[in-house]
């Protein structure tokens, strides 16, 4: 340490302090969720170091809805959406990144337009479509409207564009056709982007609520959030202990996965950088 720069050091410490403070604030809702989920409900709004710990809230939450089934549904839903998004977005992004065809920029503009359209607004129309193709109350039906993700197309296109053309040419000279090139060159090289986009997509669909509620009718298709909403309905007042316990149950897989793989996730984001 340079002795002459005490002032700078202090400034740096202050800044680090601010960074941790902000981190604490950002964590606060989660911290509170843990607090109130693990304590009896009379401590939900009172903080007492010696409050007794309990798992009752989890037991209660778990018993109020068939969470196990909902977990399975959500898991299937998220997997289907993710697979479909990967395939559809990959193909479209590849077209936008490396092919010339008439109407390309118009098509791309239209894709970007989708970013701006709120799916909530289209619920009624989409419900009609689903019922026409007989997919009301099916997990596929929940996923369909989200399968062509403009965000995914956009992100992958950017990534594909940064992949050196030489790699594609090398593969061409070795005898690869367009699909082989996509599969053997572009997809593996864009893996970080896939991980990044996957994270965003999974957390969105894991937590999506209104459309799944409207389009599903039975326990065998409903995702977790619908179960969660039973506690979330504040018509008769909020019971935070149960809500937070339910919330923790619902997001636990996500949280755990994120904790375990956070290094990989974050690194993927880094590589997927939007420039």
């Amino acid at each position: 340490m340079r002795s002459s720069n005490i002032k700078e050091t202090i400034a740096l410490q202050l800044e680090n302090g601010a960074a941790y403070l902000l981190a604490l604030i950002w964590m606060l809702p989660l911290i509170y969720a843990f607090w109130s989920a693990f304590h009896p409900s009379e401590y939900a709004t009172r903080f007492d170091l010696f409050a007794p710990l309990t798992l009752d809230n989890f037991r209660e939450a778990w018993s109020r809805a068939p969470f196990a089934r909902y977990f399975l549904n959500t898991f299937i839903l998220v997997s289907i959406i993710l697979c479909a998004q990967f395939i559809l977005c990959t193909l479209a992004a590849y077209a936008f990144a490396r092919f010339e065809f008439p109407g390309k920029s118009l098509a791309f503009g239209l894709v970007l337009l989708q970013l701006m359209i709120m799916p909530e607004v289209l619920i009624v129309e989409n419900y009609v479509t689903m019922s026409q193709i007989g997919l009301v109350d099916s997990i596929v039906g929940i996923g369909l409207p989200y399968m062509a993700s403009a965000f995914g197309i956009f992100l992958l296109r950017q990534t594909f564009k940064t992949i050196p053309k030489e790699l594609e040419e090398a593969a061409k000279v070795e005898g690869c056709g367009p699909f082989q090139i996509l599969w053997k060159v572009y997809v593996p090289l864009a893996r970080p982007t896939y991980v990044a986009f996957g994270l965003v997509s999974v957390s969105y669909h894991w937590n999506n609520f209104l459309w799944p509620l409207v389009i599903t009718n039975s326990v065998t298709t409903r995702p977790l959030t619908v179960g969660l909403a039973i506690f979330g309905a504040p018509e008769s007042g909020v019971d935070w202990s149960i809500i937070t316990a339910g919330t923790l149950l619902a997001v636990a897989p996500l949280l755990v996965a994120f904790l375990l793989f956070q290094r990989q996730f974050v690194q993927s984001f880094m590589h997927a950088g939007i420039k």
Partner: protein
Amino acid sequence: VDLTMYYPVAVGGPLTKVVDGMVEDFEKANPDINVNAIYAGNYNDARIKALAALQSGEPAQTSVMFSIDIYELIEQGAIVPYDDVVETEEEKAWLNSFYPALMENGKTQGKTWGIPFQRSTIVMYYNKDAFREAGLDPENPPATWDELVEAGKKLTKKNGDTVEQWGAMIPSTGYPYWMFGALAMQNGQTLMNSEGNETYFNAPATIEALQYWQDLGNKHGIMPSGTIEWATLRQNFLEGKTAMMWHSTGNLTAVKNDASFDFGVAMLPAQKRRGTPTGGGNFYIFEKSSPEERKAAIKLIRFLTEPERTAEWSIGTGYLGTGPDAYATPELTQYVKDFPPAAVARDQLEFATAELSTFQNGRVRKLLDDAIQSVLIGDKTPAEALDSAQKQADRLLKNYR
């Protein structure tokens, strides 16, 4: 026959389990009818779901929905009156077996469109310990507006500028029009006619009622000014931040479970009279259904509203028993005996009236909600706010006269 039924859950608790259990019993009793009972979120979600299903031509045959959606559902041509479906005398008698106050929201144009199911009224919960501390008689809660103010002043505890305990709280988010319906009724004024095409928002008694509400906070200082959050009010009460609260009977079970103090439940106080609107969900039968389906639906609804099940439902949820014979069942009789507050809502039904419900209900209700809130936050005087709300409501409703 396959039946699809949507039902919303508007109160906490393992309601879906109760409904599923009752439906199972029904299927056992009627092996030829297969019921698919679908939990549909809260009242709002349920409405969206029904509407989406309706437009897709794939609706349910019956559904529990907000009792006040009646006019909109009629306007959409979505529902059929029960009068067209019931056939036997027995069934017609069944239509008349409910508390009249609960039927008010289900009847219009001389026909019955909705059968009460998960219904509630507003009651006043009060903290007996706080009453004792303030030197008030815990068995004698305020019965008039003036008494409410008086008691409230005694109950309001201050520590410097900070209020540690408020006298009373009336929630003004979520369903302000509902609370206000009670105040107006107590002042002798209903908010609309039974055809649902006229409102009385700027009647002098209505304006007075709103003035009183505003005064509770601004003039008498027994209630916080600004709006009071519906969803967290119970917690406030349980935490002792308010000595009295007006809230749905649907909270009874939760308050009973969580209160760490001695609490009481009372009817709402009176000005010119006692009064409260009813609230909650009715059974409707959808228009897009075959005659067999309708008959099956009637069977289901009758089954679910039988006294024994109504009693079970009421005990499990805190909702009202919908007819006198429910309270005559041994279970409910016993329950009321063990837990007298459970009877308050029933007793209050005598003074109850319909919840605000008109054509263009969403808009009209919002007009009133906004007017109430704008007064409570001090933006407008009651007369201004209600005049303007009435004017706009007239414009919306004149097409229906």
